[in-house]
């Protein structure tokens, strides 16, 4: 009997779930007669907004514009994707509060791609051809971004994305990467870091490379000779050698490495002036803890794309650690009152969502810039027509949280490298280089002689 009750309960649960899905799906596909790629903003939103005489002029009205995307809500990429979820939710909420898009409300439909690329491809196919969403936003994670770009290209959808670091792999002309590293992060990113070190007048003589075998971090560290573009062929290691640093250690580790002890022992053995850690997620604090356990601390350490909070959690041992960023929630980045307000709003939203390190930094700001790009494209084109949006974005400057810039049509639409060097000082991250972007009274602290 108990079993029957359980069955009925699940039956009800599942039916409700599917029913909810069906219902939501209908609202999401308001226009099932014409393919969205060719829909020339048939609803004429401007008139709809005007005809609404009384009431608040700003309140969006009409059918919602549906923006579809996937994120890695579960699986190994989920920790960082969670930040993009908060940023997207907040952006859409503010967009609607500020009058929506073309006078219409906006609905963000985000699905779970489970950190799997082929899943992302299938989901974008569904969002575009079955759900017929009006616009799309890119997913998180290199594999998913690369898989979804093919779908977007097939249907001529404008494809803004926030974190695609394999800059050579994305040739689609209507793909707009907000990731602020430029087309050749393998050149510009390490050069920036080395310039910063040399600005102290006391650059490292020896350097150790410890690199996560993730396509993006491998590309920045070593380049990729197979792309046919000579600028892609070298990376941080070769540039270090050109600058006369002696490479005393070069190890790579898999994403799911479980034992940091032997790597730490190798670093201690090599005793470099500087450690270049091609880190993702929590690699940084993991290595720091393992080095601490050996009572060893290198004079300086750089981390490529660390989750910022856990690095600070390493306390005193993390002091002096370097990384790159394009936005931090301190001056001069927050000199612009709008950016300051966004950073505050994000902190509030991320705290409410339970994100342990709720500050706006590289990940969240890249997400934000991608959304800003999409909105400006639509508003600039004055329609939801993808060709027009694409044209507009290729030929006009956009203004995002990173400032004003133009997508570089010659360089897979990447624009300049807007990375700056940040450092952990007094238990928090501060931009320290170059000088004009440095936080007030903060300068790079590095001295290999200590």
């Amino acid at each position, binding site marked *: 009997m108990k079993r029957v009750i359980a069955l009925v309960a699940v039956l009800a649960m599942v039916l409700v779930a599917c029913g909810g899905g069906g219902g939501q799906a209908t609202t999401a596909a308001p226009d099932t007669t014409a393919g969205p790629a060719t829909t020339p903003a048939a609803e004429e939103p401007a008139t709809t907004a005007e005809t609404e005489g009384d009431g608040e002029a700003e309140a969006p009205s009409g059918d919602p514009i549906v923006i579809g995307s996937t994120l890695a809500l*579960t699986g190994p990429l989920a*920790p960082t994707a969670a930040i993009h979820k908060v940023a997207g939710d907040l952006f859409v909420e503010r967009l609607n509060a500020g009058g929506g898009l073309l006078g219409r409300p906006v609905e963000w439909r985000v699905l779970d791609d489970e950190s799997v690329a082929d899943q992302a491809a299938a989901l974008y196919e569904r969002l575009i051809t079955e759900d017929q969403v009006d616009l799309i936003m890119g997913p998180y994670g290199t594999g998913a971004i690369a898989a979804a770009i093919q779908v977007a290209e097939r249907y001529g959808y404008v494809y803004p994305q926030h974190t695609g670091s394999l800059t050579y792999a994305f040739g689609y002309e209507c793909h707009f990467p907000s990731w602020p590293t430029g087309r050749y992060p393998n050149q510009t990113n390490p050069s920036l870091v080395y310039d910063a070190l040399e600005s102290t007048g006391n650059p490292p003589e020896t350097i150790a490379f410890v690199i996560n075998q993730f396509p993006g971090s491998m590309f920045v560290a070593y380049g990729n000779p197979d792309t046919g573009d000579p600028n892609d062929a070298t990376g941080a290691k070769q540039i270090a050698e050109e600058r006369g640093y002696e490479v005393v250690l070069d190890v790579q580790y898999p994403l799911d490495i479980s*034992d940091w002890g032997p790597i730490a022992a190798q670093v201690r*053995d090599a005793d470099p002036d500087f450690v270049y850690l091609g880190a993702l997620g929590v690699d940084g604090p993991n290595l720091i803890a393992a080095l601490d356990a050996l009572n060893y601390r290198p004079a300086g350490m750089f981390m490529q794309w660390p989750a910022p909070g856990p690095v600070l959690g390493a306390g005193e041992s993390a002091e002096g650690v370097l990384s790159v960023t394009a936005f931090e929630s301190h001056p001069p980045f927050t000199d612009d009152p709008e950016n300051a307000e966004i950073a505050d709003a994000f902190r509030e939203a991320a705290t409410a969502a339970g994100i342990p390190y709720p500050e706006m930094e590289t990940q969240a700001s890249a997400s934000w810039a991608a959304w800003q790009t999409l909105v400006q494209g639509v508003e600039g084109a004055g329609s939801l027509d993808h060709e027009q949006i694409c044209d507009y974005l290729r030929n006009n400057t956009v203004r995002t949280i990173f400032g004003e810039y133009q997508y570089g049509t010659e360089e897979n639409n990447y624009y300049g490298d807007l990375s700056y060097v940040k450092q952990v000082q007094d238990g928090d991250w501060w931009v320290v280089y170059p000088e004009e972007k440095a936080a007030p009274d903060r300068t790079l602290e590095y001295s290999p002689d200590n």
Partner: protein
Amino acid sequence: MSLWAQSIVSGLLSGGLYAMMSLGMSLSWGVLKIINLAHFSFILFSGYITYQLAFSYGWDPFLAIVVCVPVFALAGMALQWVFDKLRISEFESLLLTFGLFIIFESVTSAIWTADFRRMDTVQNPYQSQSVWLGDLALPVPQLAAFLVALVIALGTRYLMDRTDFGRAVRALSQDRDIARAFGIDPHRVAMQLAGLAAGFAAIAGVFVAMSRALFPGLAVEWFGIVFSVVILGGLGSTLGTLIAAAIVGVVGGIATVIGGPPLAPLAIFLVLIATLLFRPQGIMGRSAT
């Protein structure tokens, strides 16, 4: 030279954590014939509880053992009660607990978000501390996990060999009906053993939280290592599990020094395959069990 010694020691000690994670799995699979994927969920969940106690109440992470062990022992017993009621087979248990595993991952994500959770150095001072043996550093979390695993492996071995409970368990693992004929209540013994296994998972979770960052998808990463250790050690043999885990850790450490970290899994699994070819019952497994 110190590089080699340090790497071997470091590998050996991480073997302690592998052993801690695998001991309960080995008992459950070897004796109860339950391939319990929820075991991984227990480890992760216990890790999160440890984190939360340290984060919210400033508890010393070691103290979390006091809370986690009874909680998860009870959960393990409850689960075994259900398994017994349903009379599921070995492979059905794999699927059923996979369902639980999925549910646990969602629940974890709902409570703690998908973002990384890691105790900072104030909440968990041990992560950067070591005991020094001459030139050799023994990191405290790994060392503690190793020692606890050693005590548990030996203790369980004693329990199995010398006590009535152990005799009952052994009878159970051979033949349920005969066990019943000798007046052993198989359900009761099974529940006690499942509670023990889940308690081991809880301890492993505490050490996991002490030595690394948590996120809901983390548990999948343990499948390969834990299954290898369990089978290499011989199903149901706690001492074998400990030795197997030490071998896996040391082989991984040496391979990392020789060929870099990517060589470690290759070396571990090749050793595993080779061992199984020559000793299919595992290191300490008895061919009957």
